[in-house]
């Protein structure tokens, strides 16, 4: 373990912006993608229901 404190962990030895910029965007897109797909699934189901009701 090379981190003495939490703030040191977030600073990443001065590379904080780059490291967290990479990991942050990666995490954000990988959360957003499944949510978008789930939305698509819901829309597909809704479209099928509407066509059935008609």
């Amino acid at each position, binding site marked *: 373990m090379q981190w003495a404190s939490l703030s040191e962990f977030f600073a*990443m030895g001065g590379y904080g912006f780059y*490291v967290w910029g990479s990991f942050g965007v990666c995490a954000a897109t*990988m959360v957003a993608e499944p949510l978008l*797909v789930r939305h698509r*699934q819901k829309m597909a189901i809704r479209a*099928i229901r509407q066509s059935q009701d008609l």
Partner: protein
Amino acid sequence: MINWFKFSAPSTFYPLAGKLIPIFWTLAALFAAVGLYIGFFVAPTDAQQGEGYRIIFIHVPASWMSMFIYCVMAFWALMGLTFQTRLSGMMSSALAPTGALFAFLSLWTGALWGKPMWGTWWVWDARLTSELILFFLYLGYMALHAAIDDPRRADRAGAVLSLVGVVNVPIIYFSVTWWNTLHQGASVSLTKSPSMASTMLWGMLLMALAFWAYTIAVALMRARSIMLEREGNTEWVKHLPDVKEAV
């Protein structure tokens, strides 16, 4: 012998995928947890690049996945063109956006790594350039697929394109490397760090496995949506529990 073609029918594949998705989400979370732990707490500080090198734990796996997904897409394309299965085209088009995402992530993290290490956001390095072209190949596939209205035709046209692409990827990589050496471009290599500790390798491998499980989970989810969109008025879709029960 198991009849594999049975699974290629959307009506059997849909519930099967539904069972597999949670398994792959769990796998992705587990691999990511261990991989991130190794990446941030076990792997030592790099002698030359300090803590900045930790970007490697997503940069390299993302690049691997972007290339691997393209090959898998081409595999499904070949299956689709030879066996005329509906599932193959759905799988190809379900994988493409995720592949493009990984190509983008590879470029993004590459830029964020290049800035502190080389002092510039972008270097016309052979690997980065090939990754950019791969990104364009993904965009081309998705644009072509979206531009053709009939989904079956879109699948088959996309299949031909991804096969042409997969033949060209090695040629493109070779030509870009050749071009790079001719022009004496950036000689600093991203991955060839002199002190490549084995913990680093393990971290990268685990993150790659996490991305792999993530890709399967998301692609299966998207394939399910595509099935519903395309086969909305068939009997098996109408009797799905997902469709019947109220939201």
